[in-house]
């Protein structure tokens, strides 16, 4: 019987090593989200980068969406030591293994800080990108490359003091040592310091309407109270395009409603969005219409870069 067998249960292992066996190096950024990469997508650096950028430009409610936090500083390993015990004078035994936990510092403004706080206490799949151009994750039961599940928490010094600048700490407490260690894999990819760039939430809001013709604001709230960046002005030409807008009504907003035209209103610095009269007429008073811009990737292709719309609900 093998040295590593015990009552017929074999622990199969050998200690040979591949040249490509790598250790996790200094973390540079983390990617949070449910994207699971196929072997085709991870076939080479360019393919993986393309897939990463595509996943990062997905709408927020897409299960494959990836969010990125860049420029991780001062990484610290806070993994608890394993607990041990012994019976009488017997040998020391390892009882429980501490789950991996890491803390990173990030320089951050209050606006991004409050948005990231929405992830606090959430279990999220996390990819870690290190300074050796390796993206670390885990292999799923279906053979895909995914993030390892961790509890996310952000906290920290949100006010400058005489001795410390403002920073936040991000902790990742992995929920499974097996997933983090035994299912760990990396994929090589070259990403710039701020790649992939995050998207800005652009809020649509109704100014007024005359039956099926709506005046719609396209603005992003900034960190300064009451101040907005008006994307209607920035993209007055590009967004005057019916194909970049979408409207849905009905149960779960499953019914598409044609948008017949979109025009920039220079006086109000907003857009005039016209819905199909016939479809609009079929709605009852009080029925709701969800109006939004198409996916960030499609907007990007139309030279509207780095934004995702927050839909507005119109009530007839």
């Amino acid at each position: 019987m093998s040295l590593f067998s015990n009552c017929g249960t074999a622990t199969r292992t050998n200690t040979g090593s591949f040249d490509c066996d790598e250790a996790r190096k200094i973390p540079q950024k983390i990617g949070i989200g449910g994207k699971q990469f196929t072997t085709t997508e991870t076939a080479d650096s360019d393919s993986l980068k393309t897939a990463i950028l595509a996943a990062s430009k997905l709408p927020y409610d897409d299960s494959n969406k990836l969010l990125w936090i860049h420029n991780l500083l001062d990484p610290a390993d806070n993994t608890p030591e394993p607990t041990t015990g012994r019976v009488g004078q017997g040998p020391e035994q390892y009882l429980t293994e501490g789950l991996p936990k890491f803390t990173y510092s990030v320089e951050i403004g209050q606006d991004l800080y409050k948005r990231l706080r929405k992830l606090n206490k959430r279990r999220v799949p996390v990819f870690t990108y290190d300074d050796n151009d390796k993206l670390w994750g885990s292999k799923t039961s279906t053979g895909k490359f995914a993030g390892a599940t961790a509890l996310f928490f952000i906290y920290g010094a949100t006010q400058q003091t005489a001795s410390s600048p403002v920073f936040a700490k991000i902790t990742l407490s992995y929920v499974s040592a097996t997933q983090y260690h035994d299912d760990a894999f990396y994929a090589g990819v070259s990403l710039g310091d701020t790649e992939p760039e995050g998207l800005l939430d652009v809020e649509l809001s109704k100014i007024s309407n005359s039956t099926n013709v709506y005046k719609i604001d396209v603005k992003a709230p900034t960190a300064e109270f009451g101040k907005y960046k008006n994307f209607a002005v920035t993209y007055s030409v590009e967004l005057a395009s019916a194909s970049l807008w979408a409207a849905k009504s009905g149960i779960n907003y499953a019914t598409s409603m044609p948008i017949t035209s979109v025009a920039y209103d220079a006086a109000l610095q907003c857009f005039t969005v016209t819905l199909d009269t016939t479809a609009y007429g079929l709605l009852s008073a009080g029925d709701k219409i969800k109006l939004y811009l198409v996916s960030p990737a499609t907007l990007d292709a139309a030279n509207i870069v780095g934004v995702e719309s927050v839909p507005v609900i119109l009530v007839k």
Partner: protein
Amino acid sequence: MADIKYEGIGFNGDWVKEQTLADFQAHEAHHGLSEAQLKEVWQLARGTKDVEDVSKGTVDAPIESASTASTGPAKKK
């Protein structure tokens, strides 16, 4: 969706071509275009107006879709 840009207005070309001229003109009258201009849009959507005939005037550029436009402004940040 095939967009038709005319005087800075983005029309839904697929929708436009399904309308009668009168219905289309009535539906989009609020943009302030003349009946003749709206007729041009309608004809463009239906492919009954040569783009070059009108592009010297008021047509910006009919495009297949926003994502396939071959010309456009430079990317903005």
